[in-house]
């Protein structure tokens, strides 16, 4: 299991990147009562049978690691949602992409910490790959949006320690306005 909700978010977006998606949308909506996350991609998608098997921790499609027989990303998420009485929905269509959404009651006693959203947003913006990612973040009526292509254009690249540090500073300034 992951230690924070921020880790689950990175994991789900990383799955979308690995599905060869060109466009990914991440929404993180927070109120005093709920934290809701949606990840939508236009990657390779899954058949109903593959999606059903992806819920099984002892199944992996073997595409990336032929020697591996477990896949823990989706099972981890399902276990989290079940443990806090949340809701989740996974919709996928081969060739058209996947949409993963979940909503968690923040006051539940078994709710993990939300974690560092700034680091998570910086992380999902800086994976290897030629994907576009739009991040929409809201908290109690305040919101911001960041786009990977715009940030890449401004920073020229997103890999170097210098660019990463500036990107984190930028995301922190957006996030702090939600908490002001």
């Amino acid at each position, binding site marked *: *299991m*992951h230690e924070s909700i*921020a*880790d689950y978010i*990175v*994991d789900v977006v*990383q799955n979308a*990147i*690995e599905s060869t998606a060109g466009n990914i949308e991440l929404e993180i909506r927070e109120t005093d009562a709920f934290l809701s996350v949606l990840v939508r991609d236009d990657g390779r998608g899954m058949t109903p049978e593959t999606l059903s098997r992806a819920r099984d921790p002892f199944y992996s499609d073997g595409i*990336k*690691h032929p*020697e*591996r027989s477990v*896949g*823990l*990303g989706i099972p*981890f998420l399902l276990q989290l949602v079940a443990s806090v009485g949340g809701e989740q929905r996974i919709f996928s269509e081969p060739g058209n992409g996947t949409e993963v959404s979940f909503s968690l009651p923040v006051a539940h006693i078994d709710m993990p910490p939300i974690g560092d959203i700034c*680091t998570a947003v910086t*992380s999902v913006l*800086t*994976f*290897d790959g030629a994907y576009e990612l739009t991040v929409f973040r809201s908290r109690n009526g305040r919101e*911001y949006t960041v786009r990977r292509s*715009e*940030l890449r254009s*401004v*920073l*020229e690249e997103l*890999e*170097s*320690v*210098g*660019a*990463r*540090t*500036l990107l984190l*500073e*930028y995301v*922190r*300034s*957006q996030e*702090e*306005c939600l908490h002001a």
Partner: protein
Amino acid sequence: MAKMTLDELRKLRETKKIEMDMRSPENKSIHIIVGMGTSGIAAGAKQTLNAFVEELNEHGLTEVAVRQVGGMGLDHAEPTVEVRVPDMPTVIYGRVSADIARKIVRKHVLGKQLVNEHIFDRPAADIVEGNR
């Protein structure tokens, strides 16, 4: 802190870029690649990544590329990290905690010596060849 605009970010980047260009250009070809698949994240790869960025920043190595990829297929040794430094063998390190990440920066990147006890992949022949 006021909300930073993209224009302000661009100006900040231009200022830093001038500083970076004055430093050693060969650092641009150093790559630290952190496995951030499910097992890596669960094992603490986020802390590992942050430690690399912080330690490299502390030593002024802001041109070094710190990249994120999915799992490297060495789940038993997460967090895993590939390190590419010119004139040294490419190495995959395993069980890289934040402390080990800082050690890799000091010993491997700066000191040009391998952190042998954490090497999990890549043939020893490379090391022998590299030392001839």
